[in-house]
């Protein structure tokens, strides 16, 4: 009896989580344009996407920002995670508090606060402002992912290296980095996903000349359901799926 309740509860929630996504993907292959009636299988919406230059441009823009922002965030965030776990310095606690507050703070507050900062600094909104914003919201995720891994290590390894005459950079580069590499890669993939999917913050900090995919999707979706959008959203979902699964295996590996 109890077992039965558990199984049905789990099934119901998984159905709730996945039925909409599966429906979205199924309908991206539906011939019919306006109805939800199944009119046969087709790839035409995907092919039509390839012919839409505006969409391709915004997809390319999104990929560029996501790639550059995630790499910068990973470099800075990895250093940050190393620094907070290995050194004591003034403001370390405040720094940690700020990192957590970035993860917690509602996207909209971050969006408008960065918008005001960029305007006051006299920066034109576009690629640069988007990049700075994306690095900022990705940073804490990299730092937390990497920090979790660094904490698991024996600090004696570092002491031993230091006794043997390794410098601080050498310790980081030759000892710590190889050990935490899976976590670094996971942090990078997660940042990439975050950046690729972000709507709210990007909404405020990008300009009209630099359009990115999620915002393009947002404006298309506001005008109604279209099979091209189904196809586009399905592609983005599969990208996320691939990135997240890989990241997951990279962080879980050590438990074996």
């Amino acid at each position, binding site marked *: 009896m109890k077992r039965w309740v558990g199984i049905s509860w789990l099934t119901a929630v998984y159905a*709730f*989580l996945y039925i909409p996504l599966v429906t979205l993907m199924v309908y991206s292959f539906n011939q019919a344009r*306006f109805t939800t009636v199944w009119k046969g299988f087709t790839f035409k919406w995907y092919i039509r996407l390839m012919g839409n230059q505006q969409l391709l441009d915004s997809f390319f823009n999104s990929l560029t920002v996501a790639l550059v922002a995630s790499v910068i965030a990973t470099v800075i965030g990895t*250093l940050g995670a190393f620094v907070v776990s290995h*050194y004591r310095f003034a403001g370390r606690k405040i720094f940690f508090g700020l990192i957590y507050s970035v993860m917690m703070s509602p996207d909209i507050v971050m969006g408008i*606060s960065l918008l005001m900062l960029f305007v006051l600094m006299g920066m034109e909104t576009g690629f640069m402002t988007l990049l700075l914003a994306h690095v900022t919201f990705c940073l804490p995720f990299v730092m937390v992912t990497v920090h979790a891994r660094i904490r698991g290590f024996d600090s004696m390894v570092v002491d031993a290296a230091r006794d043997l005459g390794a410098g601080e950079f050498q310790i980081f580069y030759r000892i710590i980095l190889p050990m935490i590499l899976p976590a670094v890669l996971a942090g990078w993939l997660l940042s990439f996903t975050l950046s690729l999917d972000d709507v709210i913050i990007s909404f405020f900090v990008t300009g009209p000349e630099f359009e990115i995919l999620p915002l393009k999707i947002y404006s298309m*979706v506001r005008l109604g359901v279209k099979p091209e959008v189904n196809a586009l*959203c399905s592609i983005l979902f599969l990208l996320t799926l691939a990135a997240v699964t890989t990241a997951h295996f990279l962080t879980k590996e050590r438990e074996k």
Partner: protein
Amino acid sequence: MNENKGFKNTAITVNMLWIFLFVLVPNLIVVVISFLERDPVGFFRWEPTISHYINLFDPVNARVFTHSLTYSFGTTLLTLAVGYPFAWFLSRVGRRRRPLMLMMVIVPFWTSSLIRTYALVILMKANGVINSLLVTLGLAKGPVSILYTDVAVYVGLVYSLLPFMILPLYAVLEKLDSRLLEAACDLGATHLQVFARVVLPLSLPGVMAGSIMVFLPSMGLFYIPDLLGGAKSMLVGNFIKNQFLTSGNWPFGSAASVFLILVMVSMMAVYLLVMKRFNRSVMP
């Protein structure tokens, strides 16, 4: 030695500088501007005022806030009601199947909530899947309007945020020592007592973390009422967005954002306080 110091100092400086410039400064700007007079040309004037905060309590504006808070409380309670049993059952699943099942919660956690919201539109629109199904099954004569109602907004918020409730809950429930439950049963506790006096208190950190992770974003997700709600469905996020993009009223929008910041700070403070007491009582 110099080179050593150089690496360490650069690493610290870059991180501190980035967070200082792009987190601390922007938030200070929000707070400062919320206390300044509005200006049609330069967004604000250097004249102190608290009028924007008073304006937030104007009945029309206050209604948006109370409405949004209702949505957030409702969403938090609903995700908790659905997510708690789910996380509990998931933590009792056999070791072999659990990784895949957990992964199936993590994927929606990271998937763009915009895409997931759009997927709901396909299901709920007038000639959408749910309506076709209802008509085919003879449960409804014509299309039922689900989309563009308050219910649709709740569904959208719960759908988007449910994984944010499940994951912290699962994290604490998974670590729960099953010997404690056996001990409680051996000592004669009923199922309800085991839950109320053992499981629930021990999972409190997860309940709080999950609630924060649902409550805070639920006030800002402006595209959910935009895509699913009616004309009157508005979150604090929609309100702030309108102040910045439609009215160009930076100070008023900032004052509304300070409200969100205050909610965030107080929730985190409560969390830290409870955690402190919790750690003291659990690990003496």
